[in-house]
């Protein structure tokens, strides 16, 4: 067993878990943060993407013990009360989701992508950056639109944009 302690969405959390526990299991089962999804469990789909120490990673491919000591942000950590994060708002405005299963991972990937491209994004970059996120519904078109829109809002300092996610 491992004792793990992390900061998740701004709150310090601890737990004692089996060493084999995946970070995604710890988030969902121990912390009840079921916004992070498991689509494939094989590092393909990106439904499980969360931020660990500010970087998007696949939480199905990391042990909770590996993440101990880190700061984690999940989809639940983005909105400020009832005010959606600009990326969440852009997904809603641009119809960037249908069933919504891939959406938490898409949004976490998008926030990371926008953060790494302060000079802005274009469509080919967004599509290339979505390499690790699979959507079975939308055909990606509106996801790409939503990310481009959010990147513009955030560059303009709109929404809760300046807040680090």
């Amino acid at each position, binding site marked *: 067993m*491992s004792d793990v302690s992390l900061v998740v969405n701004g709150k310090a959390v601890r737990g004692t878990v089996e060493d084999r526990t995946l970070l995604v299991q710890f988030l969902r089962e121990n912390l009840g943060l079921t916004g992070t999804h498991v689509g494939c469990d*094989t590092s393909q789909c990106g439904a499980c*993407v969360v931020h660990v120490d500010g970087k*998007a990673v*696949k939480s199905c*491919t990391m*042990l909770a013990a590996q993440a*101990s000591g880190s700061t984690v942000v999940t989809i639940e950590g983005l909105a400020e009360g009832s005010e959606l994060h600009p990326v969440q708002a852009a997904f809603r405005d641009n119809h960037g989701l249908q069933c919504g299963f891939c959406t938490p991972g898409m949004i976490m990937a998008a926030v990371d992508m926008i953060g790494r491209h302060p000079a802005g994004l274009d469509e080919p970059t967004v599509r290339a950056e979505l390499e690790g996120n699979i959507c079975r519904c939308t055909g990606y078109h509106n996801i790409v639109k939503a990310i481009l829109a959010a990147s513009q809002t955030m560059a303009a300092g709109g929404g809760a944009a300046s807040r680090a996610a």
Partner: protein
Amino acid sequence: MYSVSYQRAGTIAEAAKLLEAGDAAALSGGMTLIPAMKTRLSAPSTIVDLRHIPALKGIRATGRRVTIAAATTHAEVAASAEVKGVCPALCHLAAHIGDPHVRHMGTIGGSVANNDPAADYPAALLAMEATIVTNKRDIAADQFFKGLFETALEEGEIITAVTFEAPDQAGYAKFPNPASRYAMTGVFVARRSGQVRAAVTGAGDDGVFRSAEVETALSRSFDPAALQGVSVPAGNLMGDIHASPEYRANLIVVMAKRAVAQANG
């Protein structure tokens, strides 16, 4: 996943000690090991996490000598201004491994130690005559890569860094498998005082190798046109559901052309 014991090492010495335990495996970014453990292709009873060892982090470039510590991630190599300054081809290579999330975790040491026959880094290290530095010795890339998932590493030996003198010119092009993004064929070309080395990944029956045909042609003229009509024998190439050996043989020439075009800017 099956039950396993996780140990986090704080220093290289501590990691070496922990790896002495029977059936222990070194864990770096985990992008290969954890999926392999889920399917039980690998089943170590102990995993020793190297990712938190400060000595295994960071990139140093002095003149054209580049040293990349083993636990440096693909994203860090891709974004490194030092590496870009002397060897932009390596940044390009790192920027096209897997996907952004995988690049945030996966490390150069892990990739090299695993020596997947379709991994990208082995081609770069072989073409650039890099040295693989371990906690015990320095190993030339020519002696390091031994075949499919086989390296010169001994039991418990830990890669601490890779180091190379940046060549005068270098380029890398791969034809990625559309699903896995692993190279279905990738070619790294490096030119150093008129000599050219070309290493091929993703295509060899026995892992990464140098293509004599490509090297001979490019040593005459370092130009994509020099590869016109060059053919590579398919005899020792991989064939699978994705591509036949003959298809890969053709891809080697095509990727080599693209890599040279990139090297020539």
